[in-house]
Every structure is written in structure tokens, then in C-alpha cells.
């Protein structure tokens, strides 16, 4: 390495490195945050695994009394909850956050501080949720928290509250990771890495991230609604008072079924990444796989009712979901055939990670086949709520997620540590896990077919289930030993593993074009990509990158710089300055944790105070973002600074966030519509004084505010910044008028959400509208102040279109609410 290159590496390390000691908590770079997600996820996996062993111990023999029924209920509820919410999704997100920038030739994710915030929300939410076990008040209604079992009547303790608040808190991290992964993949790929040259793993993660944005909001909404019902007496799921418990099932499974594919897709991405490397040839059917990913992403949203075949919906509706459930097997089959064809036509090297690929193929195909069986309505009726379903679910999730994940860990272990794992321990770990898993769950299919229901804490002897349960429990412990061996291998390899050679698996993707373990800046310079397999087709690339022969080989003023590229062709569009180490994410997550804990303790005024403080912190964060002078950049001839552009990553981030926001809002509209048409005791309240006329007048200043902001933005596009400052204050004033009107509607509307389900929906809707209008108004006031200081101008328009999009969204949701509630009386009653 030349002196110049060495100096470049030193400069970049200084700019991108974490703070020393406790300062590491302020780290925002994706390598640190991604690894933290992974390690924390593995810790939660071990907790969930211990809970599983306790469950298997209890079921090993008939009529055992190791645990009381209530404790047993807590064990299986927390096992499912921890594994699904605190392990599976976060660990895969962490892996994606770690790998994606490295695979696409970027130095970091698009919003590093959001990633760090997501991590702390996940950590704190997980701790809050798991802490309930310490006091034996953990949730006990099952991991899908069905109503009415989880409502205040049948679960009067705090268990469901821990679940609802803790999971909602954790989901902040999932949605934030979804947003930043989408924007990073679409807008920060290395120059030349067009869509068709993108590593297939990125397609999987793109689909996963988009699915998170549409899949999680229904559950977030449902959790808020159930918590409001439990804590404040609102009516959504109480059938006797006009709600409907099935609404919970719909909202939960609207999340829950896509969730299976949200977990499976990144795992399949790991498989699609590893197989070509070990088959030493490109993946067969890249285009077909992309097609299968997209198809799977969509169709998986049309399956949710197959979890509800026994609740009494019409046969035709069941048939829709039955067919869709079988259809989703087609894109899965396409991928499996593509993998087999790649293996068949390549020269396969049977390295350690390939063992896990083999395990995945066997187990996942079996799980898929039982899935098709369960898609058949009559069969589903027979085995519903039996151990057959439990066995199927574990075949899909362990085979489809855990095996690829561990295979991926082995594959990228040299990347994390620069050392190779032990072959001996690795093989022992695999075979113990594989044998133990199949002993546990293959037999469990039989237990279920023999009629053993799930979630019973014990069973009578002599029903034919005894030996099956005993062997399942023995298998479970064999699997646990296998996992212990793997973890031992991982831990020992940091000390005893042989140093990994450069690109130890002879892979084709860019993450191996850097030192291992990686430097905090990933690439000393940004490469120009000409192939889908850069390290196979451009073998000189690692040297050229390290020598600073690519783009952006600089770190002026210790700034963290990145390139923004176009979504389709990855042409250079802008120069982005990313934020450095920051305490804001930790501070904000801590305040949100206080909100969460206070809600659990029902200390509502303290919670309100903390919530207000959290908004203050958010606006403080917003103030130093965007075109704030702290983010100024040295000019370059590569591309304009992002603050000089109109469609920077801020606008993309807003657009993608609003997709999730819209999914939540549409779920609310769906919930209202569902209760109206289906709930037996639903009625429109005749007592409300909310009128269409008042809503019409209330919407007028909002529309004018949005229109005014749009006009100012259009003028700025024509380089006309006159009246910008005054105009922004004008929009702000109109927004305040709208908020006052909305408040008047709320307080004068005689709304009684404890008595009328329709009013419950109205209150939540108005709350949603107030939140959005309030955010838009306050941010417009901030923009006015920023325009005064020159942060926004004809030369620096970056922030205007971002808020413009939010104003338009705010206006749309208002008028959509108006349309729903104005036309409802014509169809069934008064507003």
C-alpha cells in the first residue's frame, strides 16, 4: 500500500470510527449496529430456547406437575413471542443491516442514526417484555394474543400489557430498519450496479423490508386498540359491547402470515448467496428467482385467513385463501428448483456452511408440503390447534429460517472475526441439531394426528401420546446440545480459529472485497461495478478499492461521505453526508422506554410528560438533520451535494415511511368497516354531535396549508424564494387553525368511546389525524425558522419536497376520514 493510500485509510478510519469506551454507545455505523442486533438476537434466542426446553420437560411424561397451568401458559407464550419478535426478525434485520451496504459498495446505511434508534428500541422493548417473567406476570394468552382471552375480563393481570406495549416498542425497530434498508438498496448502490447486477440477496432484503412496511402496521394498530380497550375501556374486540374478537384475528394474521415470509425471504437470500459460491457457478435462473421473490411478497399477504378456517367464515371465502395458500408454493418451488439446478450444474465444494444448506432443503421442503396439506380446508379442520400445526410451523420456521441463518453465520464468520470456525465442532453441531430437530418435530406430526391439542400443560397417560412426547423431549434436548456446540464453536473461534485467508470461500460479492474483520468505512473508495459477480469478473477490484482508485477516496474534515445513485441504473446522482456518532438515538430510545414503562404502571401523566419530551427530542434531532450547516460538504465534481437536490434520500425516506403509515391507516379503516359490517352488536351512535359540516370546515384550513406549502415548493423549483419565510408561517398558521378546529370537534362531539364502538374508532382516527396535522404544522414552523437562517433556499431546496409530501398525505388522510364518516350515516346511521 502506498503512503497516500495508507493516509487515506487513516483519514477514513478517523472519520468513520466509533468513539472509545462508553462512547461506543453513540455508535451509529451499520457494522456496529448490525452486529449488536445479531448478538442481542442470539441472546434472546437462548432465552427462548430455555423456555422451549422447560415446555418439553413438562410434556415429556403424562400427568406431570413440574409447572402449574398458568406458568406453563407463560412459558409457551413467551417462547413463541421471544422467538418470533425478539429473535427471528431482529437477527435477520441485523444481518441485513450488516451486509447490505457491504454488498452494494456503500459505506453505511442511508439513515445511520435511525438504525441505532431502532436497535435501542429493540433492546429496551425486549428487556421490558422479558422482565415480566421475573415477576411471574408474563403474558399467557399465546404468542398471538387472541381476544377475548387477552382482554381485561379474562386476563386481568399485566401480562397482555407487557406484550402489547413491549412488542409495539420493538416494532419501531422493525419498521425503521425496513425504511432504511429499502432506501439504501434503491438509492445507495455503487455506480454501475443496476437492478440486474444487484446481488440476489439484496432483492430478498428489499422484498422483506417492503413487506415489513405493509405487514407490521396492522399489528401495531391492533396492539394499540387492544391496549386502549384494556386500559381505557374502549370497544373494539368485545363482542357483547359492539366489537368483534375476530377483528383481532384478522389484524394479527394480516401481520402474522406475511411475517412467516418476512422471516423466510432473507433466509432464502442467504441460501441463494451461498449455493452459487459453493457450486462455483452463477445462480441458475436469477430472473426467475427475482420473479419468485416478488410473487411471494405479494401472494403471502393473501393467506392470512388460512389461520382462521375454523372460525365460521363462508366456504367461498375459505376457498379464496385455500387457493392462495397453494399458489404461494409455486414461487417457493421455483426457488428450490433453481437451487437444485445450480448445484446440479456446478462443481460443489462441501464446506461447513453447505451442511446447513442441505439441512434447510430437507426440512423446509417437508415443512412446505405439510403447509400445502394445511391449506386444504377439510384437513385443516381436522388438525387445527393440534401438535401437527406446531410441528409444521417449526419445520417451516426452523428449517426455513434457523438452518439458513446458522449456515449464513458460518459463511460470514470469517467476515465478522477474520478467523475460520472449527470443522469438527461445526459438524457435530450440525448433526446434533439436525437429528435432534427431526426427532422432536417429525414425531410431533404423529402426536398431532393422534389428536393431542397444542397448549395443554399436561395429558392423561394411555392416549398413545406418551412415547411420542418422551421422544420429542429427548430430541429437543439433543437439539439443544447441538446449539450449545455451535455457540461454543463460535466463541472459541475468536481465540483459536485459524486466520481466514482473503475471500476464504472464493465468493463473488463485494463484501469480500475488504479486510476481515471490516474497517468501519468498508471501502476506501467506491468501485464502479460492471458485473453481477464483481469479484469473479473484476478480480483486481479489492486492490483498486483499497488503493483509492475508485470514487470518493477522501474524508475531508472527518466527514462521512457517501454516493447517492439512481434507483434503476445506479448512475451517480448526489453526494451524501451521513451523520457521525450521536447520543440522540440512545437518549430518544430511553425516553420512549420511560413512556412504555409508565404506561405499564398506568402512570399516565408521567407517560404523557415523557411522550412530550420524546417529541422535543425528535424535533431537536430534526433540527440538526437535513441542510443544517453542520452537514455542509466540501464541493466535488463527482456530484452535487444532496442538499442541493430535489429528490434526495430524505424524500425517499419520507415516501417509504408513508407507505407504512398508510398501511396503518388503511388497517384502521378496515377495522372500522369490518366492525360496521360484521360485528353483531355494532351500531352507529345517534348521540354524537359530530357533523359533516363541522368536518368540512375543519378540513378547509388544512387543505389551504397543504396547498400553500405546495405552492411555495413549486416557486422554489423555479428558483423563486420570495415570500418563502412568510409563506411558511402562513401554512403554519393555517395548520394551527386546523388543529384548533380538530380539537373543537373532538371535545364538542359528545364522544363516548367507552359506550360506543363507533366512537372508539372515531377517537382513534381523530388522534391519528391530530398527530399528523400537529407534526406537519410544527415542522412547518421549524422550516420557517430554517428558511430565515438560510438552511432552505433556492440553492438548498432539499427539505421542501420532503415536508410537502407529508402535507399532501395529511390532507389525503383527513379527507378519506371525512368520506368514510360522512357517508357512513347514509349507509347505516349518524356520524
Amino acid at each position, binding site marked *: 500500500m502506498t503512503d497516500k493510500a495508507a493516509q487515506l485509510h487513516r483519514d477514513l478510519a478517523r472519520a468513520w470510527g466509533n468513539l472509545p469506551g462508553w462512547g461506543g454507545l453513540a455508535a451509529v455505523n451499520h457494522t456496529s449496529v448490525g452486529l449488536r442486533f445479531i448478538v442481542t438476537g442470539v441472546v434472546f434466542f437462548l432465552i427462548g430456547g430455555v423456555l422451549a426446553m422447560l415446555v418439553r420437560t413438562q410434556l415429556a411424561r403424562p400427568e406431570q406437575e413440574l409447572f402449574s397451568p398458568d406458568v406453563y401458559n407463560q412459558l409457551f407464550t413467551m417462547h413463541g413471542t421471544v422467538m418470533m419478535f425478539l429473535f427471528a426478525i431482529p437477527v435477520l434485520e441485523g444481518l441485513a443491516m450488516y451486509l447490505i451496504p457491504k454488498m452494494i459498495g456503500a459505506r453505511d446505511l442511508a439513515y445511520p442514526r435511525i438504525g441505532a434508534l431502532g436497535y435501542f428500541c429493540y433492546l429496551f422493548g425486549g428487556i421490558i417484555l422479558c422482565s415480566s417473567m421475573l415477576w411471574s406476570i408474563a403474558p399467557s394468552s399465546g404468542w398471538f394474543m387472541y381476544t377475548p382471552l387477552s382482554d381485561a375480563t379474562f386476563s386481568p393481570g399485566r401480562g397482555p400489557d407487557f406484550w402489547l406495549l413491549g412488542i409495539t416498542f420493538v416494532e419501531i425497530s422493525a419498521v425503521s430498519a425496513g425504511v432504511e434498508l429499502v432506501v439504501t438498496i434503491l438509492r445507495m448502490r455503487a455506480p454501475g450496479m443496476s*437492478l*440486474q447486477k444487484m446481488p440476489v440477496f439484496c432483492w430478498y432484503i428489499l422484498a422483506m423490508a417492503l413487506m415489513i412496511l405493509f405487514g407490521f402496521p396492522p399489528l401495531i394498530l391492533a396492539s394499540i386498540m387492544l391496549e386502549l380497550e384494556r386500559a381505557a375501556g374502549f370497544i373494539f374486540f368485545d363482542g357483547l359491547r359492539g366489537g368483534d374478537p375476530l377483528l383481532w384475528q384478522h389484524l394479527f394474521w394480516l401481520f402474522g402470515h406475511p411475517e412467516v415470509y418476512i422471516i423466510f425471504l432473507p433466509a432464502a437470500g442467504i441460501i441463494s448467496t451461498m449455493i452459487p459460491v459453493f457450486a462455483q457457478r452463477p445462480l441458475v435462473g436469477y*430472473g*426467475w428467482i*427475482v*420473479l419468485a421473490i*416478488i*410473487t411471494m*411478497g*405479494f*401472494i403471502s*399477504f*393473501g393467506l392470512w*385467513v388460512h389461520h382462521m378456517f375454523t372460525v365460521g367464515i*363462508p*366456504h*367461498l*371465502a375459505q*376457498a*379464496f*385463501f*385455500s*387457493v*392462495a395458500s*397453494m*399458489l404461494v408454493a409455486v*414461487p417457493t418451488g421455483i426457488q428450490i428448483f433453481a437451487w437444485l439446478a445450480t448445484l446440479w450444474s456446478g462443481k460443489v465444494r462441501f464446506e461447513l456452511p453447505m451442511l446447513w444448506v442441505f439441512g434447510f432443503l430437507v426440512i423446509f421442503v417437508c415443512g412446505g408440503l405439510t403447509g400445502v396439506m394445511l391449506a386444504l380446508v377439510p384437513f385443516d379442520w381436522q388438525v387445527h390447534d393440534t401438535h401437527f400445526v406446531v410441528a409444521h410451523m417449526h419445520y417451516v420456521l426452523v428449517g426455513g429460517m434457523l438452518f439458513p441463518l446458522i449456515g449464513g453465520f458460518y459463511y460470514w464468520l470469517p467476515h465478522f472475526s477474520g478467523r475460520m470456525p472449527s470443522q469438527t465442532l461445526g459438524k457435530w453441531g450440525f448433526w446434533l441439531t439436525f437429528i435432534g430437530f427431526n426427532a422432536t418435530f417429525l414425531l410431533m406430526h404423529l402426536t398431532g394426528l393422534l389428536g393431542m391439542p397444542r397448549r395443554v400443560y399436561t395429558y392423561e397417560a394411555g392416549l398413545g401420546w406418551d412415547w411420542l412426547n418422551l421422544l420429542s423431549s429427548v430430541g429437543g434436548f439433543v437439539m439443544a446440545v447441538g446449539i450449545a456446540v455451535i455457540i461454543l464453536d463460535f466463541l472459541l473461534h475468536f481465540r483459536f480459529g485459524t486466520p481466514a485467508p482473503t475471500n476464504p470461500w472464493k465468493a463473488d460479492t463485494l463484501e469480500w472485497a475488504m479486510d476481515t474483520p471490516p474497517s468501519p468505512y468498508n471501502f476506501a473508495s467506491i468501485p464502479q461495478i460492471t458485473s453481477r459477480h464483481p469479484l469473479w469478473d473484476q478480480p483486481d477490484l479489492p486492490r483498486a478499492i483499497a488503493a483509492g482508485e475508485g470514487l470518493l477516496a477522501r474524508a475531508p474534515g472527518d466527514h462521512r461521505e457517501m454516493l447517492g445513485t439512481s*434507483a*434503476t441504473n445506479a448512475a451517480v446522482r448526489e453526494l451524501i453526508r451521513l451523520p457521525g456518532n450521536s447520543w440522540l438515538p440512545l437518549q430518544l430510545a430511553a425516553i420512549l422506554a420511560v413512556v412504555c414503562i409508565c404506561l405499564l404502571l398506568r402512570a399516565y401523566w408521567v407517560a404523557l410528560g415523557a411522550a412530550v419530551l420524546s417529541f422535543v427530542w425528535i424535533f431537536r434531532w430534526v433540527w440538526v438533520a437535513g441542510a443544517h450547516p453542520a452537514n455542509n460538504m466540501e464541493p466535488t465534481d463527482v456530484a452535487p451535494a444532496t442538499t442541493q437536490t430535489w429528490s434526495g434520500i430524505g424524500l425517499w425516506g419520507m415516501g417509504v415511511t408513508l407507505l407504512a403509515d398508510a398501511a396503518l391507516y388503511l388497517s384502521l379503516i378496515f377495522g372500522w368497516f*369490518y366492525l360496521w*359490517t*360484521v360485528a353483531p352488536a355494532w351500531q352507529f351512535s345517534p348521540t354524537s354531535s359530530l357533523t359533516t359540516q363541522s368536518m368540512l370546515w375543519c378540513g378547509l384550513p388544512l387543505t389551504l396549508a397543504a396547498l400553500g406549502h405546495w405552492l411555495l415548493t413549486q416557486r422554489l423549483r423555479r428558483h423563486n424564494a420570495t415570500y418563502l419565510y412568510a409563506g411558511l408561517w402562513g401554512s403554519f398558521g393555517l395548520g394551527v387553525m386546523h388543529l384548533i378546529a380538530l380539537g373543537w370537534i373532538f371535545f364538542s362531539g359528545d364522544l363516548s368511546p367507552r359506550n360506543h364502538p363507533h366512537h372508539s374508532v372515531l377517537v382513534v382516527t381523530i388522534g391519528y389525524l391530530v398527530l399528523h396535522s400537529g407534526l406537519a404544522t410544527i415542522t412547518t414552523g421549524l422550516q420557517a425558522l430554517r428558511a430565515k437562517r438560510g438552511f432552505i433556499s433556492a440553492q438548498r431546496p432539499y427539505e421542501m419536497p420532503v415536508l410537502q409530501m407529508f402535507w399532501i398525505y395529511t390532507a389525503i388522510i383527513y379527507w378519506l376520514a371525512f368520506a368514510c364518516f360522512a357517508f357512513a350515516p347514509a349507509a347505516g346511521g349518524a356520524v
Partner: protein
Amino acid sequence: MKLPAEHPLHLVIGLTIWSAFFIAAYGGLSVYCSVAAETDTGGLENPLNLGLLALTAAICVVSGILANWCWRSATKFPGKVSAGVYIAGFIATIGVAIPIIFLPPCI
């Protein structure tokens, strides 16, 4: 404004149409059965089944035309995959619609 066949939005339009169809089918059925449960005769010749079959035919025609157009117009990867997505939407629409031929809505 006409989107070129290579535009990445085509990668999602085909199955977005299918999603809208799916929502219309399930939502339409739910609404129909709640408002017409008493007048529904239990036969196959009812407004819902006939309407959904007509919708199926319309969506299949649109998806087929768009698939053909994308395939013929596109020279690059996204356009070809988009054609595949339209075909996937076409197949999925037919698949979901098959039960409409055989099953009445409210039983």
C-alpha cells in the same frame, strides 16, 4: 404519462392489480353476505359471483395485454421480469377465481 416497459414500477403493478382483485373478492363477499344474507338464494347465479367473474375476466384481459406489451417492448431485465409479474398476476387471478364457479357466497 406512459411508463416505459423497463420502469421498475411495472415490477409491482401486475400483482398490485391482483391484490386489488383479492380484496374486492373477499371484501365484496363479506359485504354481500352481510347485506343480502336474507335474500340470497344460495345458488351460483347471484350478483356477487357473476360480478366477480366479470371482474376476473377484465383483470385477466388487462394483465394479459400488459404482459404481452412488456415482453415485446422490453429489451432489458426489469421489463422481462415485469412481464413475468403480469403473468403471475394473471395466473393468480384465475386461481383465486376458480372457486367462484363452484361455490355460492354465503354458505
